[in-house]
Structure formats: structure tokens, C-alpha cells
């Protein structure tokens, strides 16, 4: 079950505050990295919601991310619609696509679930790639950034846009945590733990899985709108299976099913990518090695490992027995 522990609160606050602080020291490039980290934080949180807590390992989150980016881009650049409307529209589009994928895949599990989500994702990718009206493989430029001048903010300023992205990442975390703490979120964990028993208890499991996927889709699309605004450009590359895979790598790197872990993983990933790519062109290989290490060393992820160590400082040794059994055993030993 998800619990917003003190460790989680401290970590997420420190992480986001650290990112915000860093924008003050970093140059333009550093701020761009922070913006990238911020939307990857949101994407990773959205994926962890279904994968870590719902047991639904999705390989179409890159596509949902792309749907968010493209809906935002098309509305602002082609139809001149205000980003203030395009942003919620993109989120709704992500939720609808998520609901659809979730409903169709809810009957499958394991490898079949993963493959079906991959197929959905690639269908979207190929559609966008081949569609000249959407710019095809050239993508679309002229994407607008949201206008927050009425709040006294200038989104053209990379530092302020970075803050905006960090605030959205924080909001995404709060939303995901609220969902997971609710009756709905607990039920989601129950489905991951034992889907058959949930059904036997009377739960319409497929509906719950579809709704969880819709919520996750909304968040993934939100991440996409930030990416589209950052470069003011969208291309099919941001929605292929590589993107979905990267999101999954981030989640595992940070700690699947910990919510804060994937956020940490996103920042770690961007940091690794940046630092290591300065040393070698083969930075993917280094990420790969780190990933293998994470999996081999207990499969908890960077944050997950730390959380595990904090929570399990004292472990009970003997299996706990109910009073009745203890009585039974006593009786037997007296007999």
C-alpha cells in the first residue's frame, strides 16, 4: 500500500527544491536540462502509477506523452488556440487514449499486456510519422508556450519556464499520491497483488484498471505538453517505443512502486545522460550498466533501496502466530 511517509515527503521536496535552486546557478543549458528532468519526473510518476502500483507494465507511455505534445502543438500552432485551452485539451486527450488502451488491455496480463500496449503505442507513432498534415517525420514547429503574464511570469524566460515545469512536477506528484492514498488507489494495489481475489470479492476489475490507465494517461500527456513547449517543436521521435522504454528504465532506476523513486530516477537519468555523454558517446551503455546493477542489487532502484534500508532496520525473525495457534501448540506440547 502507498503511504506518504516522511522519507517520501523529504525526498520529493528536496529533489524539487534542489532543481529549482539549480536553475539559479546553471546557465541556459543547465536550465534546459532541469526542464527535461521535470517533464521526465511527471512521465515517470505517471508510469509508476500503473506499473508500480497497478502491476500494468506499459510500453505505450511514450506514445501518450507524444499525444499530449502533439495535441498541444497542433492546437496552438495550426489552430491558433490559446495554450491555456490547449493544455487541458491535451491532458483530456491523454486520459481518453489511456482509458481506451486500459479498457482494451484490461483482460490481458504479463507479457501479453506489455505487447498489446507496445502495439497501441507503435500504431500512434506510425500514424503521426506517416501523416503529412501533422508534419510527418519532420514534426511541427511554431508551438507556443503558455502565457502566464497575468501572474507576472514570463514563460519566454528559461528560468521561469523551468520553475513552471518544476511546479507542475510537484503537482503531478501530489495528484498521484492523492490517488494512491484513496480507496481507489488501495484497490489498485489490491488488483496488482491478487486480481482474482479482488474479482471474487466483487470488484469490476477491468473498469478499475481502465480508469487507472486514464489517470496515468492524463499525467503522461501533461509531461508531453511541457516537452512541446520547451523546444516549441514536436516530432515523432518523442513518441516512439524508445521513449516508452526510457520511461520504464527511469522508473526501474529510481524504484518501481515507490512513486518518489521514479522522480529521483528521472533526475538521475538526465544527470547521467548529460555527464556521461561529455565523457563518451556510449552513454547509453553506462546507463545500461547502472540499470543492470540496480536489478542485480535487489531490484529496488536507487531510492527504493534507501527506503528499504530505512524501513527495515529491525525485521521480525519468527513468523507471527495468532493467539489461537500459540494455544494449539501449547496444548500439543503439554499432551
Amino acid at each position, binding site marked *: 500500500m502507498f503511504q506518504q511517509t516522511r522519507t517520501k515527503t523529504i525526498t520529493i521536496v528536496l529533489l524539487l527544491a534542489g532543481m529549482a535552486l539549480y536553475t539559479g546557478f546553471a546557465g541556459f543549458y543547465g536550465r534546459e536540462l532541469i526542464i527535461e528532468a521535470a517533464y521526465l519526473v511527471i512521465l515517470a510518476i505517471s508510469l509508476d502509477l500503473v506499473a508500480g502500483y497497478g502491476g500494468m507494465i506499459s510500453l505505450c507511455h511514450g506514445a501518450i506523452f507524444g499525444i499530449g505534445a502533439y495535441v498541444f502543438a497542433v492546437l496552438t500552432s495550426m489552430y491558433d488556440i490559446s495554450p491555456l485551452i490547449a493544455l487541458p485539451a491535451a491532458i483530456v486527450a491523454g486520459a481518453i487514449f489511456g482509458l481506451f488502451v486500459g479498457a482494451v488491455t484490461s483482460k490481458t496480463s504479463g507479457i501479453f499486456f506489455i505487447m498489446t500496449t507496445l502495439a497501441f503505442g507503435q500504431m500512434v507513432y506510425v500514424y503521426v510519422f506517416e501523416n503529412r498534415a501533422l508534419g510527418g517525420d519532420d514534426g511541427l514547429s511554431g508551438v507556443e508556450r503558455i502565457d502566464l503574464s497575468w501572474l507576472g511570469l514570463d514563460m519566454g524566460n528559461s528560468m521561469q519556464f523551468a520553475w513552471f515545469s518544476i511546479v507542475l512536477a510537484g503537482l503531478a506528484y501530489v495528484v498521484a499520491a492523492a490517488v494512491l492514498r484513496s480507496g481507489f488507489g488501495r484497490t489498485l494495489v489490491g488488483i496488482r*497483488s491478487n486480481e482474482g481475489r479482488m*474479482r471474487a*470479492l466483487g470488484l469490476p476489475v477491468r473498469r478499475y484498471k481502465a480508469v487507472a490507465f486514464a489517470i496515468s494517461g492524463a499525467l503522461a500527456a501533461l509531461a508531453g505538453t511541457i516537452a512541446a513547449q520547451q523546444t516549441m517543436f514536436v516530432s515523432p521521435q518523442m513518441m516512439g517505443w524508445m521513449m516508452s522504454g526510457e520511461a520504464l528504465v527511469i522508473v526501474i532506476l529510481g524504484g518501481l512502486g515507490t512513486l518518489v523513486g521514479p522522480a529521483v530516477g528521472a533526475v538521475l537519468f538526465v544527470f547521467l545522460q548529460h555527464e556521461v555523454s561529455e565523457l563518451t558517446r556510449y552513454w547509453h551503455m553506462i546507463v545500461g550498466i547502472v540499470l543492470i546493477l540496480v536489478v542485480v542489487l535487489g531490484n529496488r532502484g536507487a531510492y527504493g533501496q534507501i527506503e528499504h534500508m530505512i524501513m527495515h532496520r529491525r525485521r521480525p525473525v519468527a513468523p507471527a502466530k*495468532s*493467539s489461537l495457534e500459540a494455544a494449539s501448540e501449547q496444548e500439543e506440547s503439554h499432551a
Partner: protein
Amino acid sequence: MLEARNLHKAFGQVRVTNDVSIAVEKGERRVVLGPNGAGKTTLFNILVGELSPTSGTIRLGGEDVTGHSVEARAKRGLARSYQKNNLFNDLTIRDNLALAIATATGAASRMGDTLRDPAIVERIEEVAARVNLRELLDQPVDSVSYGARRQLEVGLALATNPRVLLMDEPTSGVGPEMIRAFHDLLKSLPRDLTVLIIEHDMDLAFDVADQVTVLNYGEVVFEGTPGDTRESSLVNEIYLGGSVDA
């Protein structure tokens, strides 16, 4: 309350359920007896909807539920416990019970925190007390003993506040003290609750049952009161391994 008519189920050539009809009145305690492989668990699986019968009908409270899904039947008050523990192993006992209660009460779809709802917290305590798990509430299932898991198995089914409760060998593999406690639990259940139990412990079976149904090779071979069952030479032959004098 629960009525099945002419249920058939075959896996290929193997007939596991053969023209089974069973009618259980509201509030009745029905014990299902039969040797291993007699089709008792298969019958339960068909009744709750985990298996669909090849033919036959099932009515719950007068309503035909033959085509209904497992969850739809559960929603109408049909609960079961399993012969093999079927729990949420990575969660605590409290969370296990909370899931069952939240599903039954509709709290599963709400945005509020289940464990902060006083009605649910109270119900968790109540069910836990019933199945003697109060002091283990915060233990994860995978850290508690087999016996405690058996208790939880029944607790989960009870927690949904069912109209009809199907229990598949609730006391399998537990000690005498626990069998006695389970006995007490059965007797403390509300009299309007309909209960079907697959049971191997004869003393318990004959003590709690209003009616006994005996299955053999997928067929109902006997139905009667515990007294009649004890006297039946047929039952003695197939179930108790006694000799036939008749």
C-alpha cells in the same frame, strides 16, 4: 436462497459435474461431503462463476445468475473462501480486510482514505475479532503463520457481509484448537446467513449441518440430515470406507 439445477461440467471427456442439483434455503447450514476428486471444489467454482457450467442454471435469491460474472455474483452477496489460501500476500492483514470491506461498501471507488473512514475501521476490528486476528492486524500476510492465513481466508469472505457464504475446507491443515474456534465462529454467524461448507472434519460437519449433501464422481449420491447421513450405508461405503451390510 441458492439453487442450482441440473449442472453439468465436462473437461473434454471427463465429466466432473454430472447433473448436480442443490437447493439451499435461507439461513441453512449445508455441508458438502465427498471423497477427494468428487467434484466438490468444482461445484463451488461453478456456483460462484469461476467456471461456467456446460449446462444447467444457478439462481441466487430467486434471480438467475448463470450468465453473471464472478464479480456480479459477489456484488449480489455470494462470497467464498478458498481451499488453497488466496490472499493479498504482500499486504498487511488490515489492508487485506480493508480491501474486502471497501469493495463491498463501495469505498473502493472513493477518493477518501479507506483507513480513515471510521465505519470501515470499526468493521475491520469486528471481522478481525471474529477470526481471531486482532493482534496480527499490522503484520504482512507473508510473515504470518499458515493458521493465521487460514483464518484470514475466511475473514476476507466474511468481510464482504455476504448473504450466502461458501467455504471450501476452511479448517484444512490447522490444529485442534483452531478447528474448535472455527466451530464457535460458525455458530456465532447470523442465523439468516446461508452457509455452504466443504468439510472433512466429520464431527464438525455433523454438528453444524442442517443438511448434508454427498458428492461422488461428480454426482449427488445422497442428501439428508446429519443423522440420516451417519446412518446411510451408501455414505459409509463411499465416504467413510465402511463395509456395506445391506
